[in-house]
């Protein structure tokens, strides 16, 4: 009440309404997050935002710091520096309780029945027994495991155990999802069901952060991606933004030899193979001069910008 009054009187010009409004969007905001293990800095000043209603892909090589970052977001690893915000406020244990989390290494109680242990995990997250049972049953049906509900986990195949772990994260309408390699070990059909499930969560405004090595999958599913290398964010944004950020490449195919292109001003040639050249435009406008020169010298069979694939961008930014 007092805050409304102060806003109305203009006592805090930049605070108030717009600030608080931001906090209502379901964003996970990571700010300057760092973590050291002894001398090794596993995560170094990492900042990014996982927006509500969007799938954010978290990519990077082995040891890039993805898992460490996710564990810090989920509070299972203490933070050396930086902070994690949820809806604009420092995240609390109670907030995390409503998050769905899938750790990197997987495991369940081998001796307990699928349904029983999922309901147990749901109850620990504060979901009532009846609601947990319903949510688990629905998910088991969706993932084709309905008839295995009473079976002990150790009797399931690894792929099916993976599905059970997915359910443990997705059950009971979580407010946010943090999933470490959720697609690894799934067959293509299960990947599709999983993607559909994640879409349902983003459509209710939930932010989803998932790490993956499968770049084609990330490209297909994600609105945004965060690329990590050596513990640092090397690229972040929508796939299209990353493409425009990266230097645009063109492919030029001439009827004659294209060796002369190497000396063209404002152009960096990546590769020359007979009449075909892969080039990067260093000075904007240089491509027009190049094309004019090429037409003067002979026939131009092809001249087109190359839309880089995500894996090309990835290789470029992590190089």
């Amino acid at each position, binding site marked *: 009440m007092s805050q409304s009054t102060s806003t109305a009187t203009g006592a805090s010009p930049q605070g108030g*309404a717009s600030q608080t409004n931001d906090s209502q969007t379901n964003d996970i905001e990571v700010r300057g997050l760092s973590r050291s293990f002894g001398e090794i800095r596993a995560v170094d000043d990492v900042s990014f935002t996982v927006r509500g209603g969007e799938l954010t892909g978290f990519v990077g090589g082995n040891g890039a710091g993805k898992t460490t970052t996710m*564990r810090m977001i989920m509070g299972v690893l203490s933070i050396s520096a930086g902070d994690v915000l949820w809806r604009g406020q420092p995240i609390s244990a109670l907030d995390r309780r409503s998050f769905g989390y899938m750790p990197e290494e997987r495991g369940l109680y081998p001796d307990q029945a699928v349904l029983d242990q999922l309901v147990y995990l749901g109850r*620990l997250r504060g979901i009532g027994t009846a609601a947990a049972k319903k949510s688990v049953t629905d998910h088991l049906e969706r993932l084709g495991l309905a008839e295995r509900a009473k079976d002990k986990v150790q009797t399931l195949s690894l792929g099916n155990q993976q599905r059970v772990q997915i359910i443990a994260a997705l059950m009971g*309408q979580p407010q946010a999802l943090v999933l470490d390699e959720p697609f690894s070990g799934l067959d293509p059909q299960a990947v599709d069901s999983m993607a559909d499930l994640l879409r349902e969560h983003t459509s209710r405004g939930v932010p989803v952060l998932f790490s993956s090595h499968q770049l084609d999958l990330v490209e297909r599913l994600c609105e945004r991606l965060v690329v990590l290398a050596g513990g640092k964010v090397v690229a972040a944004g929508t796939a299209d933004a990353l493409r425009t950020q990266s230097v645009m490449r063109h492919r030029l195919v001439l009827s004659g030899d294209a060796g002369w292109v190497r000396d063209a001003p404002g152009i960096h040639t990546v590769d020359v193979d007979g009449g075909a050249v892969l080039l990067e435009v260093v000075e904007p406008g240089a491509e027009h001069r190049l094309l004019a020169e090429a037409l003067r010298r002979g026939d131009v069979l092809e001249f087109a910008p190359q839309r880089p694939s995500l894996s090309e961008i990835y290789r470029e930014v992590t190089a």
Partner: protein
Amino acid sequence: MTTVNHSDPSAPSGRSPETPDRNDAGRPWLIVAGREIVVRLTNKSFIVSTLVTIVLIAGVGAFSAWQSSRSSTTTVAVTGPAATQLVEQGAAAASTADDKVSIKPQSVADDAAAKAALTSGSADAWLHQGGDGWVLTAKDAPDSAVEAGIGSAVRTQALATNAAAAGTTAAAIEKGTVLTTTRLDGQQDDTLFIKLASLAFSLLFFMAAILFGQQIAASVVEEKQSRLVEIIATAIPLRALLAGKVLGNSVLAFGQVVLYGAVGLVAVAFTDYSRLLPSLSVAVIWFVVFFAVGFFALACLFAVAGALASRTEDLQSTTAPMTMLLAVVYVVGFSVTGTALKVVSFIPIVSVVAMPGRILSGDAAWWEPVVALVVMAGFAAVTVLVGEKVYRRSLMQTRGKMSWREGLKSADA
């Protein structure tokens, strides 16, 4: 300008219908304890081992009850009226001492017939005149009750005869020759029984502590190894997880000990030692109380042992200090006597076994178990605090096993 509800910024509109009811929020440890109990109670080997133990305890009771209620009849071969009279007097004396012993004479023609009766088994013993008195011959050693009965008949008769010859009476001669033993507290001497009961306390505590302790450690490392603990840690405080585990297993261990104790007391009621039931019951009740507090302290330490390991294979070495401690308690519990016993009966954990033994033998003042219990409760409180700290630190540490020393001094994960 956007209107904002400042009064409750953490609850944006439209959230509540989507959010399932978050009940149980205040007592997640209860959910954990519930799971520990249910998983254990539906475990076949646990049920079977419990039933087998109950059958064993009841069986020992039933056997000794049958043993003590068994009546025996001894047939003594005799060749003349003098021997017959002695056997009859002996029978009277023996049944006064123990009504389950009966002796009856069997007249035979001569010594040869008596020997034949012994050999064939139709008689158990043969009373006959020897060099300067009576001889009781049996196939092997004669039954002690029979020997005592007939022996006293022979002595009484000989005394009477000898006294008459000396011009006095048997009573005059016997006067002042009998030694009667009594105890100051008016109780009978039951050292052996007390020893056995102490041994039973030791064994029961040792078994239950090892069984349930290992169970706690195993369930902790199971969650750690499978990284389930990461999922659980995002849902509830680790303190609640530890509390739930310790509570659930303590309830189970306690329930089992109460069950065994009750069956044991019922079994004792059917034996000759039933007169000891009141003092035994008091000792058992104290034992159960001590057990509950002592086990709680141990349970925390076992949970820490589990958290220090990172794979099930490490458990052997991380629980080794606990196993050693329990073995010492076990041995001390029934081997120490005198002043040493008084001292150890105040030392936490050892007191679980030592104090009930002292209560049973009647040498503990009323305040002694109370003090020992308070000391142990203090010890339990310390292990809970320290245990919780180490548990929290080591549970997220997934690289190899940690030593107890590392666990105690390591920084938070």
